[in-house]
């Protein structure tokens, strides 16, 4: 019944190539899971003891910082091979004809153990690191809610980190699923944090329900994995999949059972739900109803990348299906484009960031789809930093301007006192997101786009991504040019945090009264704008304090420094992060990737194509996309090009240029000559485009479409079924439900409460049973 005996049996039977024995990992990895749980307990205790200070925040920061420190230790220790840290035996059932039988289909093992390889450590590094920083940020951001709400927030925050760690570090798919549902639950709890706000509750429900659709796919994928491979532990799955991988390597897809090809497709559906891809992306923009630190951590940096993690972790399985990776790639590319077009037309800066998150997640999926898991992982890391930075900057603005997020009502933040770091953070974030040359976003995005042109047959994805890069630059700098620079102007939002802003309430009501007629305001464009309101409003935006500023500054530095990762000499194209992915099960080096490294872009230790043979693990096919087996020897012949040039060499300039164009357009339309906050040159151009901007602003009416196509028929169906249920099923249920009651009333008189009645009953019962037994068996 022990896992080791079964493992050795599996390894003996399944793997034609000798797998390196899996060593046991460092035990302190379990602390990474234990510390957030400790945080949950401490925050709960704070709630019970009615702590009215910022204690829970600092406890959280402490726990998470310790977890981060341990993760760094794990990183320093990590070797090239995966290791497994055994926690405890969680579920270990076996059955069979004899007790000693331990064949895969006679047992179900899901231990609480951790699978540590470079991919795990990479994910955990930014999860725990960002969680620590964002917890620190939230300590100030949430200070308006000090009290039980504060404890609730941080308890859920810790629980999220625990669930995410579970998802990333678990050594089997059940732990992944546990974490998957756990992060979903925490997301629900935190989106609905302001549970008195109906829109927040709606958004929380929407996120939860839409995720269920994806989760169904994931669950079915896990079930099929067990059904086919007889195990849900990664090492067993990878070992068992080896023959199929060999088949796929030789292009013999017909030898791979359909069920195995179906597994990655189902897993991809799960990933699309969690990572907000088409068609399940609609929950993510609404999720912005949650407090901004939550948006930054969960809905930008970590949880939404769980789908990318899933695909990367199960990459060997994805390579087995002819349709899974193209599906992932195309969905990713189309999501990237689609979300970008919506993002261009929004006015709420947080929503713009939300759509940009959806769009960037699309990039990552597209990257996975075009066979550059390394590039996708790199983009996950860089995106985590700069998107968290952008969200936190938006949060600081929201915090300071009483919930104001409309870019038509804010302007010139740079020139206000105390907003320097926020402006800097926005600038750094925007540059990264726009793919400005030599920022980390630039490198990671180029890896994806370049690879799309390199991999045969995926050039259309590359073109879509390139176009999206331009759109991204435009909408990113649209925010920057309108909010950060330009004439100083602001209006407070309708959320007032503290008592001294009570006066401003008049303003907010006034805002509501005026409704959408903000253009008529014709604000005076100077510092004293708010005096001219004439309503006695004395709103003063409060600039962020030390905690927020520290975090923003740290993140700005980190997101700039992340580009340095690209230049780390590791021998793998793309620097440190791809090198880590390369050492994990997600490793897939396209044979096309190595001839095409740009000379000038500074890849430190590139050692030539023959290095690929060393870095690619034996169980990963060298090529999946090629029909011609001879192409393995001559990869250059099949490699795609970008209009006849080497994609990696030329794309640095092309995508840089696209980015510049986007920024320039934003400059012309939203900054040059703008004298008010509300209007810009773009407004004059809008009518020329007809109804398209309005459609984009209404998110292409996708929500309405879903409402019509899914919700209305479902409701109609529900009402029909309700009727059937009421008339037919209820009757049946009532009938069957009545049987126990009827039986009960039949037996009830025996419970008379009288001693002699009971004694008589017992004696009779004994007599009857004896009679029955003797009559039936001992004649």
């Amino acid at each position, binding site marked *: 019944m022990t896992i080791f005996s079964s493992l050795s049996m599996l390894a003996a039977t399944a793997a034609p190539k000798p797998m390196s024995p899996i060593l046991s990992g460092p035990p302190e990895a379990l602390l990474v899971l234990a510390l957030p749980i400790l945080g949950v307990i401490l925050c709960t205790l704070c709630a019970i003891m009615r702590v009215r200070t910022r204690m829970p925040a600092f406890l959280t920061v402490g726990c998470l910082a310790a977890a981060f420190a341990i993760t760094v230790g794990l990183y320093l220790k990590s070797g090239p091979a995966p290791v497994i840290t055994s926690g405890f*035996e969680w579920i270990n059932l076996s059955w069979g004809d004899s007790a000693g039988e331990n064949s895969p289909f006679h047992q179900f093992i899901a231990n609480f153990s951790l699978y540590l390889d470079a991919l795990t450590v990479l994910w955990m590094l930014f999860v725990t690191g960002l969680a620590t920083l964002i917890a620190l940020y939230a300590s100030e951001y949430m200070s308006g809610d000090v009290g039980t709400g504060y404890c609730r927030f941080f308890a859920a925050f810790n629980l999220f980190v625990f669930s995410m760690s579970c998802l990333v570090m678990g050594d089997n798919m059940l732990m992944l699923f546990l974490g998957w549902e756990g992060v979903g639950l925490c997301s629900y709890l935190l989106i609905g944090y302001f549970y008195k706000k109906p829109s927040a509750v709606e958004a929380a429900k929407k996120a939860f329900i839409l995720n269920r659709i994806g989760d169904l796919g994931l669950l079915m994928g896990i079930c099929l994995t067990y059904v086919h491979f007889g195990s849900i532990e990664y090492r067993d799955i990878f070992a068992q999949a080896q023959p199929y991988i060999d088949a796929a390597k030789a292009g013999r897809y017909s030898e791979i059972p359909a069920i195995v090809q179906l597994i990655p497709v189902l897993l991809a559906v799960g990933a699309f739900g969690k990572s907000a891809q088409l068609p399940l992306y609609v929950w993510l923009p609404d999720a912005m109803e949650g407090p901004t630190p939550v948006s930054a951590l969960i809905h930008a940096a970590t949880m939404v990348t769980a789908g990318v993690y899933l695909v990367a972790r199960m990459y060997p399985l994805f390579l087995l299906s002819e349709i899974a990776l193209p599906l992932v790639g195309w969905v990713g590319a189309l999501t990237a484009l689609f979300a970008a077009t919506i993002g261009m037309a929004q006015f709420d800066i947080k929503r713009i960031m939300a759509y940009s998150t959806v769009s960037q997640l699309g990039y990552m999926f597209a990257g996975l789809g075009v066979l550059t898991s390394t590039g996708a992982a790199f983009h996950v890391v860089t995106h985590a930093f700069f998107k968290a930075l952008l969200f936190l900057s938006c949060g600081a603005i929201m915090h300071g301007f009483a919930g104001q997020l409309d870019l038509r009502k804010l302007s010139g933040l740079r020139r206000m006192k105390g907003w320097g770091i926020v402006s800097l953070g926005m600038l750094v974030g925007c540059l990264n997101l726009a793919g400005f040359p030599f920022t980390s976003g630039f490198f990671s995005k180029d890896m994806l786009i370049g690879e799309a042109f390199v991999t045969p047959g995926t050039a259309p994805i590359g073109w879509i991504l390139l176009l999206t890069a331009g759109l991204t630059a435009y909408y990113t700098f649209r925010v920057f040019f309108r909010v950060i620079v330009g004439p100083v102007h602001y209006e407070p939002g309708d959320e007032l945090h503290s008592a001294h802003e009570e006066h401003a309430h008049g303003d907010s009501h006034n805002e509501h009264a005026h409704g959408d007629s903000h253009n008529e305001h014709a604000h005076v464009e100077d510092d004293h704008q708010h005096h001219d309101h004439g309503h006695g409003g004395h709103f003063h935006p409060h600039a962020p304090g030390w905690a927020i500023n520290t975090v923003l500054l740290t993140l700005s530095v980190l997101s700039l420094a992340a580009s340095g990762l690209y230049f780390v000499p590791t021998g793998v194209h793309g620097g440190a992060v791809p090198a880590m992915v390369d050492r994990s099960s997600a490793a897939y080096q396209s044979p096309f990737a190595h001839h095409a490294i740009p000379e000038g872009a500074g890849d430190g230790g590139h050692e030539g194509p023959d290095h690929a043979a060393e870095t690619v693990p034996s169980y990963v096919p060298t090529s999946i996309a090629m029909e011609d087996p001879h192409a393995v020897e001559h990869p250059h012949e099949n490699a795609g090009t970008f209009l006849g040039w080497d994609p990696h060499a030329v794309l640095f300039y092309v995508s840089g240029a696209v980015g510049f164009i986007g920024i320039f357009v934003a400059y012309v339309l939203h900054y040059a000559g703008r004298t008010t906050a509300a209007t810009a040159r773009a407004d004059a151009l809008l009518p020329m485009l007809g109804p398209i901007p309005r459609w984009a602003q209404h998110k292409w009416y996708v929500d309405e479409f879903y409402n019509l196509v899914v919700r209305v028929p479902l409701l109609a169906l529900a009402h029909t079924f309700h009727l059937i249920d009421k008339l037919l099923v209820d009757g049946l249920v009532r009938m069957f439900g009545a049987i126990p009651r009827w039986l009960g009333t039949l037996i009830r008189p025996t419970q008379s409460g009288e001693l002699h009645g009971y004694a008589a009953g017992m004696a009779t019962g004994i007599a009857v049973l004896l009679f029955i037994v003797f009559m039936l068996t001992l004649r």
Partner: protein
Amino acid sequence: MIGRLAYLWPEIALFATTCIVMVLGLSRSLPMRKASAWVCGIGLLAALGLSITTTPSGSTVIASGGQAMLPGMAPFAKCLICLVALFLLPLLAGTVDRAEEHRIATGAGVFNPLRSNRAEFYSFFLFSITGLLLVADADNLIWLFLALELTSLPTYIMVAISSERHRAQEAGVKYFFLGALGAAVFLYGFALLYGATGTTNLNAIHESFLSRGISTMAIAGLILSLLGLCFKIAAVPMHFYTADVYQGASAGVAAMLAFVPKTAGFLAMLLILATVGWSSGPGAASLPEPLRLLLWVIAALTMTVGNVLAVLQSSAKRTLAYSSIAHSGYMLVGVIAGPGDGSFTRNGISAVLFYLLGYGVMNLGAFAVLASVEKPASDGGEPRELDSFDDLRGLCRTHPVSGWTMVLCSLSLLGMPPLLGFFGKLPLFTSAIGAGEIPLVLVLGINSAIAAFYYLRLMAMPLLEEPSFRATAPVDNPFVSRRFAGLLSAGGVIVLAVFANLLMKESTAAGRYVARPETASAGAKTEVSVAQDGR
């Protein structure tokens, strides 16, 4: 005999504690008397420790003359008994004093140190637990009978003194008389067994069955023994007392009644059935047909009667009492399934042992909630414990700890997947399927569904209903220890479920059945002097 003593250390320790507690209870100083609960706890902890360390298993048991068919059962059973007893202790603490204090407060009596029977109550409890441990050790029918009675006799008194209300005394009397009747039945069965085999030693009886076959007289003896033990486990047709006694007793004592006699009954049943084994039936691996049929009928009836009566109740306490009957029916399925191939999912014996622990823990939580919240009587009488479902309304809001304990425990009793009850019920199903008892599994499934009706009600009342803020809104019982017991149980339901695998391993080892122990009757051979054949 000295060899036997070596593995009776837990019992010896517990008995010594009992004596200390009795003496302590006579002390003049109140703090000394109040210490008796703590002394009890220390004694139980010591017994737990000794159970883990000194109780031999496997071959040592046989060498020392213990019963050899279920060599691993005693250590596991002793640990689980001591563990649940430790959980029960805080729930029982203060049961008698509350009634006495109230009598004095209302002027119905004056303080009389002689009436301060705090310590007696605890020593009765410990006596009962000692008896239970001795049941696990039994290797002899006489030993078994004495141990069973030592388990039961103190509980009769505990029921009667647990509350000042007349109902408790009535319950005590009923319980005593019917208990005596039950004891008479299984004693008769034991006598027939002795008559059929000429020995009271279980190993020797086993040996005799193996060598001479099972006579009709022995079958009759076994049937009567099982029927008598049905009283202990509250199974049909000996179940009549259950609801009245549980409702009459205070909730703490009721929780104890749901665990202690039931465990004793199941352990005794397994010991007695081990003598015939699960390999002499028509199927290759089942009980002899008469016994299988008997247990089959009892199991099906017990589950059904318990559940359908529970559905009708408006009193939560009575519901729990009837559900306790139903749970006995579930466990009987495991008894019928037998050891199977020895793996956890196929071994009915380990399933029963596991379920006893699970049931002990989660059932305790439900009763602890009823005990820890009480309603002041409108006429100024003694505040009474929660009883009806209505009293539980909105408990999660008014008494969060108790409310959530109730929610967790009733979900676990229902067998919801992440909780302990699920892991308990799973092997009952799988072992019965493995043994080919498909119709019984269907009955079990249907009954689990019926049980959902009242367990969900038990969960929904505290969680979903609005609290009823009437004049008689429930208040916390002054004994914090009871809420603590509830918390322990709720925590156990989760924590033990997370570490269920460890328990599964242990219970698999405990449920190992040795059909033909080599040295089984080495020490007992001489006792087999008369070979009687009833045919």
